[in-house]
């Protein structure tokens, strides 16, 4: 069990951090199935991130009293139980409550897993594995969630987490059984090193949180929220792609994030240069997502590649810097997790009203464009009237959302000779809606780029020299 413990704990970290955005692609299904509002369904995302942000440091303090393994096991079990509860939630209120509980368990699990991974792999490798698992989880969350939603259901996203988490409970306990460690130790225990004399926790002066990497992480998380959350919404709601297609499309981000490692090893930049370049790439990718030349998915690939590269160059570097060789380690991990998820919440809080307002504003130009096309369509006058009446209902019923014109066109009965013109009109109107949705998301993507540029500023501001 001890041999499998490290990978299982890393998977747990990835699962918990993937949960930050795993339901993004499932939100439209949840909205429909639980018969709720857009505002409420956003809390399925916000509640988890907010509780994780607020709970990470207290959880770390709880674990810092030598209860890392037990606390982690309890956290993982709580996370598993809450995931199962999410899967059977019959109302939006229950789902949000379950997500809060999931985040509480997740906070305990993530900071505890850091301690246990360090025990298993040693300080440097343990922190690296923990940070990388977090990046993989964050980057693959929307992809995995979208695929599960498309292939099975939104509930399956939560069901599939349960067995992984349950396997990690004995793994956490197994690490305690093998290597008893005092939290706050300076030495690096390896798997084979066995117990060694260490200073007691109260003998080690606690380090202050490293503010700069945490602020950078918060700003980058807000930017990455824009990249992942907004992109999947644009693909599913704006461009009417299925969650599965959207999931495959956003898989570019994790793939590019993986490619960032070899690139950094090849060019060997300093840590500051690597992080600054990562921020710049994320900003550039978000600007690219703001200005696609059409709704062809291919136009999102290269900008996503830039975002993924930026993600791979920044998040694990910053996380390691904020956590490594700082005591108490779990508490610093808590600050890092808190910063990242505060960033996600801030990103959602800032970007959601921006794009919902822009989506509302996009209705007028979209309706005018549709009206122009219907008025000038090469159809018989009575067919134009029929189309206008059908569209009127479709547009009126979708306030604040991109309407699906398919059912409206399906209701219009025309002579066979008119059918090609009607089909062309439907395609043209869909194109106008996609144009309007793309325009509506532009400012939000640019705001996300602004967060990444702010992060770049934080990285580039010279450090104050300490006087002795």
């Amino acid at each position, binding site marked *: 069990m001890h041999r499998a413990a490290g990978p299982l704990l890393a998977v747990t970290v990835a699962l918990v951090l993937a949960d930050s955005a795993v339901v993004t692609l499932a939100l439209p299904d949840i909205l429909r199935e639980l018969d709720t509002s857009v505002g409420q369904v956003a809390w399925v995302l916000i509640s988890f991130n907010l509780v994780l942000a607020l709970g990470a440091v207290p959880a770390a303090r709880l674990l810092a009293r030598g209860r890392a393994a037990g606390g982690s096991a309890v956290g993982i079990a709580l996370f598993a139980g809450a995931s199962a509860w999410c899967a059977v939630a019959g109302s939006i209120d229950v789902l949000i409550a379950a997500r809060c509980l999931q985040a509480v368990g997740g906070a305990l699990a993530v900071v505890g897993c850091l301690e246990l991974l360090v025990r298993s792999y040693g300080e440097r490798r343990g922190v690296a594995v923990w940070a990388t698992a977090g990046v993989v989880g964050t980057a693959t969350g929307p992809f995995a969630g979208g695929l599960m939603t498309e292939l099975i259901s939104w509930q399956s996203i939560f069901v599939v987490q349960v067995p992984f988490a349950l396997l990690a409970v004995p793994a956490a306990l197994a690490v305690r059984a093998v290597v008893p460690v005092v939290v706050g130790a300076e030495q690096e225990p390896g798997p084979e090193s066995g117990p060694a004399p260490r200073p007691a926790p109260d003998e080690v002066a606690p380090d202050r949180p490293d503010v700069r990497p945490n602020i950078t992480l918060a700003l980058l998380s807000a930017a990455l929220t824009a990249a992942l959350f907004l992109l999947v919404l644009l693909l599913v709601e704006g461009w009417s792609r299925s969650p599965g297609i959207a999931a495959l499309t956003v898989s570019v981000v994790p793939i590019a994030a993986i490619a960032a490692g070899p*690139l*950094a090893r090849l*060019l*060997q*930049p*300093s840590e500051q*240069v*690597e992080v*600054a*370049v990562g921020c*710049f*790439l994320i900003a*550039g*990718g978000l*600007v*690219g997502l703001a*200005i*696609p*030349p*059409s*709704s062809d998915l291919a*136009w999102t690939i*290269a*900008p996503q*590649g*830039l975002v993924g*590269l930026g993600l791979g160059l920044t998040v694990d570097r910053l996380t390691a810097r904020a956590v490594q060789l700082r005591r108490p380690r779990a508490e610093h991990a808590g600050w890092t997790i808190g910063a990242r998820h505060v960033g996600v919440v801030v990103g959602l809080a800032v970007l959601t009203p921006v794009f919902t307002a822009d989506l509302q504003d*996009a209705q007028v*130009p*979209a*309706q*005018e*464009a549709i*009206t*122009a*096309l219907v*008025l000038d369509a*090469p*159809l*018989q*006058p*009575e067919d*134009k*009237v029929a189309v*206008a*009446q059908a569209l*009127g209902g479709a547009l*009126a019923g979708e306030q604040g959302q991109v309407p699906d014109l398919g059912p409206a066109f399906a209701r219009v009965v025309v002579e066979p000779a008119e059918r090609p013109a009607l089909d062309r009109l439907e395609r043209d109107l869909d194109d*106008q809606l996609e*144009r*309007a949705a*793309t*325009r509506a998301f532009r400012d939000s993507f640019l705001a996300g780029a602004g967060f990444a540029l702010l992060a770049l500023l934080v990285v580039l501001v010279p450090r104050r020299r300490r006087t002795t």
Partner: protein
Amino acid sequence: MTGLVRVVALPVVSLVLVVGVLAVQLLNGGGTYEPLRPPDACAERPVTSRADGIDGLAERLVLLAVADAACTLGVSREALTLELAQRAEVSDSEVAALRDGLLAAVRQMTDDGSLPPASALVDEALDQAELNGVLEFAIRALPDSLIDSALTTDDVLIRTIEQLDVRSLLADLDSPAELDRQVEAAITEAVKDALLDRLRNLL
């Protein structure tokens, strides 16, 4: 790898990547992928119809009239169309602009010669009207030249527009049968008035 290369290589690569991606997107129309902007309602635009006869004529008249009214009101043709379709109450200025627009449309079509002669519309009008069979036969038997000398299309249309209650017409946009009834009644009155005036002039 030297220190300078370590500092410069990754920033240069990233700059090339970002500039390259954004340049390709902008060169392919990135940033202009937006909904169609409605043209200036005052600008001339070709107005055509797939329909023939009365339906085609009515469609062209309405499209020209809405564009003219929108120009008068300082909005786009599309904005005015949506306004009329979505709002229960229509303002006096909108009603006046539409009436003026319809009259201007008749003048424009008269000037450019696109108004068909009355004789070209008679058969279709008789098909739609519920007339006494003998009277319908008699009218169909009239030579086109006689019909065209007795009735001119522009005169009938202008009289019809003057007869129409535009506000009531707009209130019944969702009810084609009611619209037909109002328009038919206005045309019948217009034709009667035109024929009476013609007779008066002859006498």
